[in-house]
């Protein structure tokens, strides 16, 4: 796999935790997307994608996350993001209004502690 981004998956009960390191742009968004898909497995009800170690993410990455959320929703599964405050990617996510569509936590513990909830009805 490319050294631009690295995907590590981990199963925690019904939660699948996927950590993505590195950078996501047009060149590897598709690849990262399919790697997340592979890491997720079949049983997980909820997918937590930890973007704490992402140093660059642009609208190609945002598009990837939105597509992922949509795909999961169609399979009645939930997507949750972890993005620390002050992260370089926070600004692009805020600007695109992504947190209104995909639940976003600043800390991984908070994301993992949450109970399952229904996905939002519609996307912007």
């Amino acid at each position: 796999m490319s050294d631009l981004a690295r995907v590590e998956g981990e199963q925690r009960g019904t939660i699948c935790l996927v950590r993505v390191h590195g950078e996501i742009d047009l060149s590897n968004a598709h690849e990262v997307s399919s790697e997340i898909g592979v890491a997720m497995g079949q049983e997980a009800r909820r997918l937590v994608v930890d973007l704490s170690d992402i140093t660059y993410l642009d609208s190609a990455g945002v598009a990837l996350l939105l597509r992922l959320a949509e795909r999961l929703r169609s399979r009645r599964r939930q997507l949750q993001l972890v993005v620390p405050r002050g992260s370089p990617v926070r600004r692009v996510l805020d600007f695109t209004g992504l947190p209104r569509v995909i639940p976003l936590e600043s800390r991984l513990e908070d994301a993992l502690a949450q109970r399952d909830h229904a996905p939002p009805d519609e996307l912007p």
Partner: protein
Amino acid sequence: MATRERTPRKRPGGWSYAAGVLLVAVAYYTAAKLGLRLALVGRNITPIWPPTGIAVVAFLVLGRRVWPGVALAAFAVNLPISTGVLPATATAAGNTIAPLVAATLLAKVGFRREIDRLRDATAIVFVGALLSMSISASVGTGVLVASGALPADELPGSWAVWWAGDAMGVLVVAPFVLSLVRPWRRPGRPRWRHLEAAALFVLTATVCLVAIDADPNLMFLVIPLLGWAAWRFQQRGAAPAALLVVVVASWAAAKGVGPFRAGTMLEKMLILQAFNATVAFCSFFFAAVVTERMQAHRALERSAAGLEARVRQRTSQLSEAQQIAHIGSWEWLIPQQRISWSDEMYRIHGHVPQEFPVTFETTVDQVHAEDAARIRSNTEAALQRADDHDLPSIEYRITRPDGAERVLLGTAKVCVGPDREPLRMVGTVQDVTEARKAEREHRIAETLQRGLLPDRLPEVPGLALAARYVPAGADMAVGGDWYDVVELPSGHVGLAIGDVAGHGPRAASTMGQLRMALRAYALEEPSPADVVGRLDRLVSRLLESEIVTLVYLVLDLDSGVVQFANAGHPPPLVVGPGGQASFVDQGLGSPLGCDDPGLTAEASFRLVPGSTLLLYTDGLVERRGVSIDEGLERLATAATDGGQDLEAFCQRLLCSMVEDDTADDVALLAIRPVPLTGRPLLRVPAEPRVLAPLRQTLRRWLRESDADAHVANDILLACGEVCTNVIQHAYGAKEGPLEISLDVHDGTAEVTIRDQGCWRPSSGVHGGYGLPLVQELMESVELTGGPDGTVVRMRRRASSGSER
């Protein structure tokens, strides 16, 4: 005799001179005594006076300085028969001066003692005899008259007799003596020649004696015999024969026998001299003419033989030249339908020279079918054209009788006759099989070489690169050294240098495989140790028994950190900003293919700004008779102070480190990070893979421009958005360039992104953020679209002090 006392001793070689004078004197005196027996007038006028001949020969052979011998002998001869000392002296002087004059004049006219030319015969008759001897005759008869020994009225007759006698002495005796003193040039004549000569003389003598006694008219029988002598033996035969005949005739005249029984003295004299002159002239001229003819004949023969030898030599030289050049030649006489080949033609076609029935058909039979068709059509066309012209040269293949295939290059021309009908065709055939093979191999090697080394180094913003490759020796043999520079997806730069042991196509092809493998691995593996580890497994499994050393480094231009793994390669050299050189000798593992687990050790160092990194192969530091440590030391010394220009730096290192006849090839790669100062212009293809390297460059530029961290992030993101748009929309499915220029002035960063395509902000469901986001991130954004492309110009204050 008194001669001895009078010999000038001061002359060099005095003894031999004295001996010569003595010899001449004796010979003269003896000849004179013999001659006087034939005297007709008184006691001292003879019809033939042999001493003059002796004197002329003496002067011709021994030189005129032997005149005292002649003078003395003449005096000795004349004294008893003269009326006193004075007349004897005068006569002797005349006798000496006449031959002296004769010899001088003969030398002047270029007389040759061999008398083998007509002009020599003419010279001795007219100059040597008739002209010169008038002197002795005049002096002699004058003295006789003056001393009262001769009545004045008898002067003309006596003068004539004296003159004729002296002249005959020259004519008859001189050639005879000359023929004796001439070296016998052809030893080992056949015995029958001697028998023939003996028979000839016996016959001549017999005819003379019988004829004189029996019938004077028969005397003319000797003429054919003289002819025989001259014809068969030239002067060597003619001179003695003439002498013999003249002596016999003169003796007969003196004794009054035969034709000289009756008549006055003058009549006898006239008859005798006429006869003698006839004999002398005949034999002389005949012999001279025959000699001349024979010489001409021999000269012709010699030159013919020389010509023949030259032709033979040239033919064999030509044949040799053809053999060396592998060029054969042929000639086709068209009306006669006859083709002849040079020996080399046969060899080229695999036949024994001159042992193959050559016809047009048998020749073409050996040619490959498709080439044969071309040859036939060329030939037909040439025969139909009614002028002299060259045929197009043609390269064709033949199969020899032993099955070997050869490539030949044929040239030919056709010559037409007066009626424009084709007369002959000539041509050459060159065996170019080896040349074509060599050309092919050279092309392969060239292609290989091109594939082995980067034909140009990539242009990496903020990185200066220079490389050199020097093949081993002067033969330009392909070696096993290589270097490479790879732009990695991360935006880092991969640097490699390696060495496959050996030279030639095998080492080169191994090197080529490794180079490609390294490129592939480098694109996938971020860690140098992993790349080298994979190469190690490749070498172990696929390229056994190869010894490969390699150092692979990944340079992060942003931080200057270099991560590397070294598989048994000479350590990279870093020349610091101050000019001090040091080797990077940590992280050294075994060469590739050694199954050494320690191989994958990875180490790192930081290339501080202003440093130069030098990668090289062992050819640079190895020299006959010098240890490698010493070589490394020399390199460190030579590399101290890298200088401004990287190309010059490489050149300087090669000049000081590499000898002309280097046994190993040398590869050299110098790397120096340089600031992105000024207004960098990045030009890349509009493809997704360029995004990460662009960010690397931008980050560096932003840091060097003192941009705040969060501002840098915003600018980076804005640029990423615009570039992504260009890549996605500007060119459709086609390829096109993407150009980014960076500028900072008054604390404001300005980024201009150009393309040559056509795009507008997209409005897809999940897209559409691009341009608004950019406008949010930057303080000003101008978008200008046109038929020549789109330009986006964005500005943002970079430093926090002026941040809004």
